[in-house]
């Protein structure tokens, strides 16, 4: 039992991060139809910039803020200089553009910073609590609580503010959105900015637990993508549930089978969803896009 709980704790913790990555996929996909495989790089940037800004002498909160702003600026630049000029290109071309952007971001990070692994001190002590015989790190609670706060903030933004509703409207019907006076290009840009912010916050939350390096975004993007697919691409609730499920599956298979299978779980999830339920858990049948 303690073993089971231990795996569940670690599964939920990484799952919360996957959920944030999946939410990033979801937002951009809804607003623009683009599947942004550079989503993992925002998480990586959140971690790496915080580490180096902190090492350069900035207090941790300021270092985290710097990382957040950096990621948002890069997210906007990605939209403005790579996605917008390619408007009207096929879905495959757009995916390739985002993959290219992620390679570029990885390379630039390795040059600007370095190729080593980095971590940060836990934000609130490192002595674990023992719950049901399993160790629960305070940082795990910070990750879970932080991710939950981000989800609630996003929900509030999307359903309670006019700008958030404009984003939903653009996702629902782009023609009608333009006809009511929404600048849909700006909305898509906004979705990149918000997704970048969510990703960076995920990176800031997880770095004390997981180490970060210039190439840590690749696997995160893969896992977040698996989570988004599992939840049903385009569904925010599905993204959160999908993230937690992928995290749990990964932790249990690592614990009970072998940790060398850990990263294969995401692939299996993607294949399973593609073959068995292309709409995902919460998919809304046949979303048409023009």
């Amino acid at each position, binding site marked *: 039992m303690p073993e089971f709980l231990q795996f569940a704790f670690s599964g939920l913790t990484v799952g919360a991060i996957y959920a944030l990555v999946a939410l990033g996929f979801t937002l951009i996909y809804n607003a623009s139809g683009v599947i942004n495989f550079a989503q993992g790089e925002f998480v990586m940037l959140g971690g790496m910039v915080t580490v180096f800004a902190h090492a350069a002498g900035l207090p941790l909160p300021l270092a985290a803020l710097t990382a957040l702003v950096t990621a948002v600026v890069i997210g906007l630049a990605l939209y403005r200089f790579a996605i917008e000029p390619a408007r009207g290109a096929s879905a495959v071309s757009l995916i390739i553009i985002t993959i290219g952007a992620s390679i570029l971001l990885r390379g630039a990070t390795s040059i600007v910073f370095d190729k080593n692994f980095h971590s940060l001190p836990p934000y609130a002590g490192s002595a674990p609590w023992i719950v049901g015989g399993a160790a629960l790190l305070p940082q795990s609670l910070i990750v879970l609580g932080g991710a939950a706060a981000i989800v609630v903030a996003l929900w509030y933004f999307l359903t309670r503010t006019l700008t958030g509703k*404009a984003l*939903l*409207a653009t996702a*629902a*019907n782009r023609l*009608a*959105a333009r*006809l*009511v*006076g929404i600048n849909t290009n700006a909305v898509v840009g906004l979705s990149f900015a918000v997704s970048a912010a969510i990703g960076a916050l995920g990176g800031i939350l997880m770095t004390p637990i997981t180490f970060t390096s210039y190439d840590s975004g690749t696997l995160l993007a893969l896992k977040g993508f698996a989570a988004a697919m599992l939840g049903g691409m385009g569904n925010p609730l599905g993204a959160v549930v999908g993230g937690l499920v992928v995290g749990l599956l990964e932790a249990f298979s690592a614990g009970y089978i072998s940790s060398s299978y850990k990263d294969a779980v995401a692939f299996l999830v993607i294949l399973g969803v593609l073959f068995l339920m292309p709409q995902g858990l919460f998919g809304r049948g046949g979303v048409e896009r023009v």
Partner: protein
Amino acid sequence: MLKVENVVCRYGRIEVLHGVSLEVGAGEIVSLIGSNGAGKTTLMRVISGILPMTGGRIVFDDEEIDRLPAHLRVVRGIAQVPEARQVFAPLSVNDNLLLGGFRRRAADVPRELDRVYALFPALAEKRGIAAGNLSGGQQQMLAMGRALMSGPRLLLLDEPSMGLAPVLVDQILDTVVALRKAGVTVLLVEQNVNAALAIADRAYVIETGRIVLSGPSATLADDPRVREAYLGL
């Protein structure tokens, strides 16, 4: 108020509007009639700025608006009720209307919202319901209400009676007449040619991307070509 001059529009290589000109004066109801595929919807979208035009001019209030993006044309006072309603299906009725007022000053929105609910009481009862769950007639009212939320001076209506029961068609057209009384200028696309000519001051007939006839509604209703092609007489 609106002057469309020699507008050319193409989808890829296929030209669908071959130099269309029409005018709508302030306070008028003008109908645009034509059979399927004539280019009516295309023209409405060009006027709203959704589709780019490859030639011609569009003048609104004596100002050329050709280069104005769609969202700024709404600010100028042009609203469109698009073909097939195009409500924001997953969003509530109330949110659909609030989004209609996206470009309004926040202070003006509640008053306009009350006015729209007064005009369409059926919508008021369904504020919290997802627009996709409304009946066709209610969706049409919602699409009109949403367009009115922007406080338009020119309202473009693309087949508002499509697929509706006769009672509802009458209700929608009565609303159009009432709106004109309230000072809104209307450009109306209708398959229901009888009804369109009955409420319009003037009309244009478009065939395969060209205006072929125009004049006062009464004159057109008596025109043998119109009677044969569109009124089935």
